[in-house]
C-alpha cells in the first residue's frame, strides 16, 4: 500500500496534482474580475497620508486559474457529503441541499440588517417561528437566536447567570464542570470571571447527585453539564442533580452540543436546565463550513428570560418589531441579529422534517451509534459498557501489545476512505476514539466502517509498521505539528521584504 501511496503522491499526475498557494500562481498584470472605472484618478479624494495604492502581495490571477485553484483545494478535503465522517460530538449529519437554495433566495440574501422592520417582516416571522420551534423541541420558555456559535451561546448563558446572581446581590464565584466537558465550558465560564471547580463522574462517566451535593455550596453560581455527556451516556440523575443545584441557589447550564440525542426523548426544560445553547450546525443540519459559520441560539426558562440579549422580536398589532424588550438584558453579544443565513437553513430543515421527522432523526442516530458500539466492542475496548446514546467511545487498550495507538488507528482510517473519529477526547478516557455516526448513514456504510476498523485491528497485530506509515493515500503524509508550532509560519510573504518594512506590507 505504501508503495502505491508514494507514486500517487508525486503530484504530477492523476487526482493528486499539486496545487501551489494562490500567491505562487500570481503573474503581474493578471486580474480575475474586470472592474469598470467611472473615470481615472480619485486618489486625490483622500489626503496623501491616508492614500493606499495597490497592495503588494495580493494575488494577480485570472478567473479560470482562481476557479481551478479552489476546485483543486476542495478535492483535498474529505467532507460529510463525500465520506462517512464519524467525528464524535460534532454531529456531521447530511446538510440538505434545499437549505442552501433557501438561504440564497434574494429576499433573504439581499436583505440589509438595518432595514426598517416593516420591510423585513418575512425575516422577523421566520426568526420568531424558529425561536418557537426550538422552544418546543427543548421545553424551554424563551429563545434568543443572537449568539454566533455554540461557544458564544455558552458565553451568553453564563453572562445571564452572572447577571441573575448580581441582581440578587449575590457574588458567587464558582462554576462546577464535570471533567468530561468540552473545553469551551471552562473557557466560557472563565470569560465571565468564574473559577472552575471540576466534578468527577462515576465509573460510568455519569454525574451523580451525591457528588454534586458534596461539591455544592453558596459559592456555586452554576453547574455546566452536557447531556448526553461526552461519553455518549445519558445523565440519568440530571433531574436530581438540578434539584441539588437549585436548592443551593445555583442555576443549571445545559450544554446542548449533544442535542441530536434528545429530540423526542427528553426535553432539557424538564430536566431542570435553566439555560442551554443549540448548535444549529450540529442538530439542525446547517453546514459546518470547515469550521463555521455556526449558530448558537440560547433557550432559557422563565427565571432567566429578562436577561436575554437585546433586541427581542415582539408582536406589535399585526406586525413584528425589534424591541429592547428584555428589561435586565446582558446586552448584545453580536452585531445585528445573529447568523441569519443559518436560521434560514435550520428553519428549512425543521419544516422538512416536522416534529415526527426530528424525533425519527434522533432515534436513527441513536440506533446507528449503538449498532457501531455493538459491532466494535469486541475488537476495541469500550470505555463505558452498556447502551449509548448518539455516540460511543472506544479506546486503543486492546491494541496495547501491538504498539498501535489511537492516533495510528485514526490515520489508517483515512487510507480506508473514512474521516477519523474525535480522538483523545473526552480527556477522562485514555486513548479515546469517539464515534458519532448520526442518522444520515445507511447500514451498508456502517458495515464498511466496521470492516475497516476490524481490518486495522488485524493489521495492528500482523503488520504494525504499515499502520505507523499511515496515511499513505492522502496528498500529504503525517505532518510534523510539533515543529510547526516551534517555528510558526502563519502567512505567505512576498519575497524579501525590505528591511525598513517589518509588516511586509510594502505600500
Amino acid at each position, binding site marked *: 500500500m505504501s508503495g502505491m501511496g508514494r507514486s500517487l503522491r508525486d503530484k504530477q499526475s492523476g487526482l493528486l496534482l499539486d496545487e501551489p498557494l494562490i500567491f505562487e500562481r500570481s503573474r503581474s498584470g493578471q486580474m480575475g474580475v474586470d472592474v469598470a472605472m467611472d473615470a481615472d484618478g480619485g486618489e486625490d479624494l483622500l489626503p496623501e497620508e491616508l492614500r493606499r495604492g495597490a497592495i503588494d502581495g495580493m494575488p494577480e490571477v485570472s478567473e479560470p486559474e*482562481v476557479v481551478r485553484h479552489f476546485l483543486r483545494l476542495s478535492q483535498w478535503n*474529505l467532507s460529510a457529503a463525500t465520506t462517512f465522517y464519524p467525528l464524535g460530538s460534532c454531529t456531521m449529519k447530511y446538510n440538505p441541499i434545499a437549505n442552501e437554495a433557501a438561504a440564497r433566495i434574494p429576499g433573504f440574501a439581499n436583505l440589509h440588517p438595518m432595514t426598517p422592520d416593516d*420591510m423585513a417582516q418575512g425575516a422577523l416571522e421566520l426568526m420568531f417561528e424558529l425561536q418557537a420551534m426550538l422552544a418546543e423541541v427543548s421545553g424551554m420558555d424563551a429563545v434568543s437566536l443572537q449568539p454566533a456559535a455554540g461557544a458564544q451561546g455558552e458565553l451568553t448563558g453564563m453572562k445571564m447567570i452572572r447577571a441573575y446572581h448580581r441582581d440578587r446581590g449575590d457574588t458567587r464565584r464558582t462554576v462546577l464542570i464535570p471533567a468530561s466537558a468540552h473545553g469551551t465550558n471552562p473557557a466560557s465560564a472563565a470569560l465571565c470571571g468564574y473559577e472552575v471547580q471540576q466534578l468527577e463522574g462515576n465509573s460510568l462517566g455519569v454525574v451523580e447527585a451525591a457528588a454534586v451535593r458534596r461539591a455544592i455550596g453558596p459559592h456555586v453560581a452554576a453547574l455546566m453539564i452536557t447531556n448526553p455527556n461526552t461519553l455518549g451516556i445519558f445523565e440519568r440523575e440530571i433531574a436530581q442533580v438540578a434539584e441539588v443545584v437549585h436548592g443551593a441557589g445555583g442555576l443549571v447550564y445545559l450544554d446542548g452540543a449533544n442535542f441530536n440525542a434528545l429530540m423526542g426523548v427528553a426535553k432539557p426544560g424538564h430536566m431542570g436546565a435553566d439555560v442551554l445553547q443549540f448548535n444549529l450546525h450540529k442538530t439542525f443540519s446547517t453546514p459546518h463550513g470547515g*469550521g463555521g459559520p455556526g449558530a448558537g441560539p440560547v433557550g432559557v426558562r422563565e427565571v432567566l428570560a429578562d436577561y436575554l440579549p437585546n433586541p427581542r422580536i415582539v408582536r406589535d398589532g399585526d406586525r413584528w418589531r425589534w424591541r429592547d424588550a428584555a428589561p435586565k438584558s446582558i*446586552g448584545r453579544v453580536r*452585531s*445585528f441579529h445573529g447568523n441569519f443565513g443559518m436560521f434560514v437553513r435550520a428553519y428549512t430543515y425543521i419544516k422538512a422534517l416536522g416534529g415526527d421527522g426530528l424525533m425519527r432523526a434522533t432515534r436513527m442516530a441513536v440506533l446507528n451509534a449503538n449498532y457501531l458500539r455493538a459491532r466494535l466492542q469486541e475488537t476495541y475496548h469500550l470505555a463505558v459498557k452498556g447502551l449509548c446514546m448518539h455516540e460511543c467511545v472506544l479506546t486503543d487498550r486492546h491494541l496495547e501489545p501491538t504498539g498501535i495507538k489511537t492516533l495510528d488507528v485514526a490515520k489508517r482510517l483515512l487510507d480506508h476512505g473514512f*474521516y477519523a473519529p474525535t480522538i483523545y477526547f473526552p480527556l477522562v478516557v485514555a486513548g479515546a476514539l469517539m464515534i458519532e455516526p448520526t*442518522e444520515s448513514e445507511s447500514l451498508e456504510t456502517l458495515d464498511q466502517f466496521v470492516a475497516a476498523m476490524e481490518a486495522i485491528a488485524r493489521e495492528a497485530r500482523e503488520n504494525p509498521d504499515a499502520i505507523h506509515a499511515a496515511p499513505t493515500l492522502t496528498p500529504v*503524509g503525517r505532518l510534523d505539528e510539533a515543529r510547526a508550532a516551534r517555528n510558526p509560519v502563519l502567512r505567505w510573504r512576498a519575497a524579501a521584504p525590505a528591511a525598513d518594512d517589518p509588516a511586509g506590507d510594502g505600500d
Partner: protein
Amino acid sequence: MRFLPQTEESVRSMLAAIGVDGLDDLFRDVPAELRATANVDLAAGLPESETLRRLRELAVRNDGASALSFLGAGAYPHFVPAAVDNLLQRAEFYSAYTPYQPEVSQGTLQAIFEFQSMVAMLLGLDVANASMYDGASAAAEAALMALRVQRKRERLIVARSLHPQYRQVLETYLQGVRDAELVEVGFAADGRIDSAALEQMLDDRAAAVIVGTPNFFGVIEDVAAIARLAARRGALVVTATAEAMALAAVRSPGELGADIAVAEGQSLGVPLSYGGPGVGLFAARDRHVRSLPGRLVGEALDSDGRRGYVLTLATREQHIRRERATSNICTNQGLIALAVTVYLSLMGKEGLRRVGLVNLQRAHRAQALLAKGAVQARFTAPFFNEFSLRVKDVDATLRRARDAGIVAGVPLGEWYPELADCLLVAVTEEHSQAEIERLAEVVA
C-alpha cells in the same frame, strides 16, 4: 423521510445485532418521566417543493431586499463575482468540519493559510487568525487581548464614534472581567476622535485605545496621530473597521501604527443576509502572537518533506488550555473566510485598488450632489464610501424616500441624540449614477 437512509429491514437487523427488541429499548437509561413529556409537537414534515414554497412566501415579504437602499452602518452591498458562491457550494468545503485531521483537510487548511496571509496584508500587520464571528466580537476579543498583553493596565478607552453595536458587544464581553474598565472618548466637530480629550485620558492605567476607522459616521480617523499619543503613554491602539472595503483605498491600520486591527469582512464577497453570517478579521503584531484568540493555521512538513498545513499554536486554545485559554471560541466563520479568500483572489491587487477608487468616487460625487441648500455634510474629515448628512427633518426625509421606493439611510439619532438631525448614507460601486440622482431628488 428523505434524509434517513435506513429501511425498516435494516432497522430490524440492527436491533438484533444490538440485542434489543425495539427502538424504545435503546432509551431505557432515560428516566420514564422525562420520556413521557418529550413529544415534539410541531407540524408534519413537508416535501421539498412545499418547504421551499413556504420559504419563498416569507422571503417575498422582505420588501427591503429589493428596494433601492443606501443603508450601510456596518453592512454594505457590494458586487460578488459569480465564481465566489459557486466555489462556496462545493460540499467538500461546506460539509467538512474544523480540520482536525490535516492529511484529509488540506483544502480547508491551505485556504485558511491564504486567508490569514491576505488579512494580514489588508490590515498591514504581521499575523492574522483564521477568523472571528464578526467585526463586533472581534473588537471585543481585541480588547481582551489588549488586557492580557498589558498586564497591569485595566482601562480601555473607547471612541464614542465606534459602531454602537460594537461598543455594546464590548460592554457585554467585559462583564465579569476583573478590574476592567471602559471609558468613552467623544468626537470633535470634524467627526474624528476628540484628540485633546484623548490626550487627557491617556495615563499609565490605559491598556488600549479602541477606535473605529472609518468610524460609525463614515469618517476616517487619523490613526497615526492616535498612535503617537497612545505610544507616549504605553497604550496599545486597536482599530475596528466595519467596512473592510475601505482597506482597498485607505492606508492600512498597521502601517499607521495600530497594534491590533480587526474588521468586519462581509463587504469582501459575502451577501448581506440580514447581517449574518459575516466574518471577523483579526490581525496583530508578531510579538503578540501567543496572545491571539482563535485558530491559527501554519505551514508544516510531512515525513517526506512535502509542504502542508496544520492547525498550530493550539496551546492557546480552549480544547487544550480550558479555563486558561486566550478565548472560548471554537467554531468560527470558516466558510465565510473562504468566501473572502476567493473574492480577494479574483479581485486581486489591481481589481481591489480599482473597486476602492470607484467607491471613493461615487460616494464623493453623491455627497456633493446631496449636500445642497438645507442639506449639509455633517462632518468635514475625510471619508471613504459613507457620510453623515444634516437634514431638516430626518423622519420626513425618510418618509419621502420610502414613498419613492428608496431606503435613504440610517438615522443617527437612535444612538446619538446629539445627531438627531443626521442621516448616514452609504454609496458603493453597486449604486449607479441614476440611482444616486434619484436619492438626491427626494433628499433635497
